[in-house]
């Protein structure tokens, strides 16, 4: 509360960016969690903006008609306000900047958000998704794969979940040794098991190979993964980075697997760019969406120049490659990038969506995000700037995954149980910090924050409202819904737009 200098401003104009004559006058309130605009009209319509969704607050120069304030949200909504007094405007901006960027977790909305749910229900809600059950749904043969206790209390890797599936043949020494040879201890573990071919999708971070280092345990680990798929004689290591980046990492004592040391592996580079490139790309595509009545040429040029669709295609291509290996060649794949929590999560989850119809359902997509992103330590709080922090850590990694799914939905209108609204809603929740699911950067952090006791889970909430998210064209027995999805990633098959432009899709403007 101490950050709110002016809790209420009257005679504020909320400007409709498209049709200025539709603008309305009302009162602006600042609460500890929301900015609230109440129209003066009889309807007294209210607009609520969650502080944690606010991305930036701009204050363009004061005009004779008042002081403008532009609130840009992380879900790409933009609110333009006109305040009568410059002083109020300065105050509101300062308060909002502070309120939208708390510097400790305790200030986040999820810790004060109290829906009408009792303790028992809350506990049940946190058990809504069961990853244990998910791994058994995959039909993992217990003679080949098992849960290792190695990461109990996060001893081996503090960014991984405590339960890890590894080849049964890998001894504890191999597991620990392999973890030591991997960046941040993120050793190769199972992400998805494809029952039809017994091939597995595994994930890890880059090896600490440098120019010449090797680790027998890590080599044995990969060998064990390959052997867990009895029919195959080799396996793929998919490095999702551009080869040049991977090579540059060797100078820092990291890098990629040396094919001479690992027997029977095939190394494949995909070329997904790093988080900094992606951040710039999203900025550019947001700017394209911001253009006031651009010409078709400006728009297409902006789209090309942003590189956004090129990056989306790269992520999809990574998924397609993994699917080919796993489903067609019947060969296991180890996916990694640098740390194995961004591009690796993207590639593994896209591949899972393509491989398994379950992940194309509402519950399935939730499980997938819980598994590949939440539990495997995707750094939600860093990437989506939940707290004041290093802007270089921010990047639209999961946005790109969701956009891949959206592009697939456009290509296969009958294949997905959910609709576009579901993706947008997920995106909002990832940024809004209203629920505890996406707080922090790893399972360990969430445990230390006692997220389960102090916040609520979003999954049951989404599930209860699933009627809103149903794709009417989905039928579980449709040919598109069954089996493997084989998308065409020829550029012309991409929608020339981004799902993130949709919230602002504007009305006509003929003049």
């Amino acid at each position, binding site marked *: 509360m101490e950050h709110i200098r002016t809790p209420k401003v009257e005679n504020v104009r909320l400007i409709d960016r498209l049709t200025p004559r539709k603008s309305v006058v009302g009162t602006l309130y600042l609460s500890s969690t929301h900015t609230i605009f109440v129209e003066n009209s009889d309807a007294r319509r209210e607009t609520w903006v969650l502080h944690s969704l606010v991305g930036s607050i701009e204050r363009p120069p004061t005009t004779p008609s008042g002081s403008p304030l532009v609130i840009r949200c992380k879900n790409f909504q933009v609110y333009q306000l006109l305040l009568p007094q410059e002083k109020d405007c300065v105050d509101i901006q300062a308060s909002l900047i502070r309120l939208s960027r708390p510097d400790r977790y305790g200030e986040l909305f999820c810790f004060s958000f109290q829906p009408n749910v009792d303790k028992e229900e809350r506990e049940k809600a946190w058990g809504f998704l069961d990853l244990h059950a998910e791994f058994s749904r995959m039909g993992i043969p217990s003679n080949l794969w098992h849960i290792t206790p190695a990461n109990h209390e996060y001893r081996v890797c503090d960014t991984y979940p405590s339960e890890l599936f590894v080849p049964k043949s890998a001894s504890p020494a191999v597991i620990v040794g392999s973890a030591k040879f991997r960046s941040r201890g993120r050793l190769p573990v199972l992400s998805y098991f494809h029952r039809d071919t017994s091939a597995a999708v595994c994930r890890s971070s880059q090896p600490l190979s440098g120019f010449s280092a090797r680790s027998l345990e890590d080599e044995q680990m990969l060998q064990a993964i390959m052997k867990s798929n009895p029919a195959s004689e080799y396996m793929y290591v998919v490095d999702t980075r551009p080869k040049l980046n991977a090579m540059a990492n060797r100078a820092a004592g990291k890098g990629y697997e040396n094919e001479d040391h690992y027997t029977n592996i095939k190394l494949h580079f995909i070329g997904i760019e790093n988080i900094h490139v992606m951040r710039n790309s999203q900025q550019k595509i947001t700017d394209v*969406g911001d253009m006031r009545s651009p010409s078709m040429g400006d728009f297409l040029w902006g789209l090309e120049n942003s590189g956004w669709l090129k990056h989306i295609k790269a992520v999809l291509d990574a998924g397609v490659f993994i699917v080919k290996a796993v489903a067609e060649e019947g060969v296991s794949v180890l996916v990694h990038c640098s740390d194995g929590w961004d591009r690796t999560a993207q590639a593994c989850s896209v591949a899972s969506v393509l491989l398994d119809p379950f992940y194309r359902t509402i519950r399935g997509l939730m499980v997938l995000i819980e598994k590949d992103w939440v539990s495997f330590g995707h750094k939600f709080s860093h990437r989506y700037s939940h707290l004041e922090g290093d802007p270089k850590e921010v990047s639209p990694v999961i946005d790109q995954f969701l956009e891949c799914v959206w592009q697939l939905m456009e290509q296969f209108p009958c294949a997905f149980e959910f609709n576009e609204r579901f993706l947008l809603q997920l995106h909002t929740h990832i940024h809004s910090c209203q629920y505890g699911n996406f707080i922090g950067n790893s399972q360990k952090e969430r445990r230390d924050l006692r997220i389960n006791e102090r916040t609520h889970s979003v999954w049951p909430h989404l599930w209860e409202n699933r009627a809103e998210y149903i794709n*009417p*064209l989905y039928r579980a027995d449709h040919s598109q819904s069954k089996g493997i999805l084989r998308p065409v990633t020829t550029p012309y098959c991409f929608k020339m737009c981004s799902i993130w432009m949709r919230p602002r899709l504007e009305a006509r403007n003929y003049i």
Partner: protein
Amino acid sequence: MEFSEHIKTANVEDVVLKLPFQPPMRGTLCVTGHHLLFSDRAEEREWQLLLLLRNIDAVEKSVENLLGYPQHPKAGQSQRTTGSSGTIIIKCKDLRILQLDIPGMEECLNIASSIEALSSLESITEMYPFFHRPRELSLNDPWGLSSPEQDYVQTERLWDRWRLSKVNSDFSVCPSYPGAMIVPRTVDDDALVKAARFRQGGRFPVLCYCHHRNSMVIMRCSQPMTGANRKRCREDELLLQAVIDESELGYVIDTRSAQQAQQARMTGGGFESKSFYRPWRRIHRHMERGKVLQESLIKLVEACGDPSHNMDRWLSKLENSKWLSHVHSALSTAGLVAECVERDGHSVLVHGSDGTDTTLLVTSLAQVILDPASRTFRGFLQLLEREWVQAGHPFQQRCARSAHSHARLRQECPSFVLLLDCMWQIWRQFPLALEFSEALLLRLAQEAYASDYGTFLCNNEQERCTLGVKENTHCLFQFLLRCSEREKYINPLYEPTELAIWPSVQPQSLQLWTGLFLRWTEHAETMAEAREEIWTIIKEHRERTGAEETTHTPPTHRDTFTAVENLMDELTIL
């Protein structure tokens, strides 16, 4: 002339046909006067391809003479003693590309030259519509859907201020206009004749639409021939004066830029000057036409034909083709016209230079935006008949060649394809508002270039009369309205609305018409499945609601209700 002159080889056995995304087929190829026939009898199912030669835009041939060389090691399956063979690649006006591998060099060359000759016959009466005689149709069936006379008689709100003029009944006043037109009541035929002399090609201002809500009108014409020394024509001025009341204001939407309009004066054309046409305000909206538009289509089709482009290259090729910019300007100009009429309550006159391309594009799209009647199946076909066929869009010249042709461009221009693309954009944005579906637009895009029917033959009504098109060919529109055909083109989601439908012209709202430009790629299949699924849901819904009305037990049927509601939601936010 006999077609057989052009056919040196009528039949070839053992030809391999390769269609995109299908396994090659082996069969017999046959050339007739109007068709290419391929039949595959090798398998149990008999499969045939009947291709109208007129549909062929370009033929590329290559032959290989292996005579005198040792037997090719890989020529395992078909060992012909001659050892020569050839390949013909056929590029169609409907954008399909097929390949024929023909054994025998001579046969191949013969077939190719037959196709080249027969696909580009110039004489209209030798074209297939004059020979198409299906059993279920009779030449005595009605031709066309309506006439200016019928339109006038049926539109009561016109009678007060408008009349039907038959001054052009012998096409002497304006060769590209139909015999009858609707003009202001106070203007007599003599004045029309004089006004026609002042307009390019005699296309004086005529009525094309009267808005049901406020009786404001859309008229169209060609440019006035003011020339360098600002000639004027009293009758033309009075004609336009007669359209609007003294106190009112009208808008002239000129589909050229102000600069182009100025330049047109050097060649005898021009525009309505403020001082002589007082109540009319002129707005210039530049729209591309002619060669520029044709080249745009060629570039776009070329870009769509190469799947090896990377994303950057594809987007830059797409931008470079400018096709979507043309879609954008057509829709926004039409939106402007509709806005003048519906929002501001003014009458509008539309013209460019000839008044046969961009003008018709704008007037017909504006009508779709404004008029619920033109969004029905029949109404849309009537609109096309009135605003394109009867209004003298020169189909014969414009659709002689399409995007693949290597021939030198003459008068080709895809104005009509652009209209259909704009219609598709409207359909995408308002999936419930049109009674017909994308399938109709695709069919029309094909028929305009190569058809069994006479509807799109010739450049205007005069030519159609001279050649007896209506007596000797069948009418496409009548055919499409037959029950069996109609069913294929109906939009299952159609829910008529009386309101104007305002399309968004934001670049991100406009998309590439994949249904047309990627029609022959793997992309098309999943979309077809989606359409089928929509049909299934709608049918189930109808059956259940039908059952419900009799049994009065709604709760169990809630599922389909939500499904259909969701469907509506889903499609409106597309």
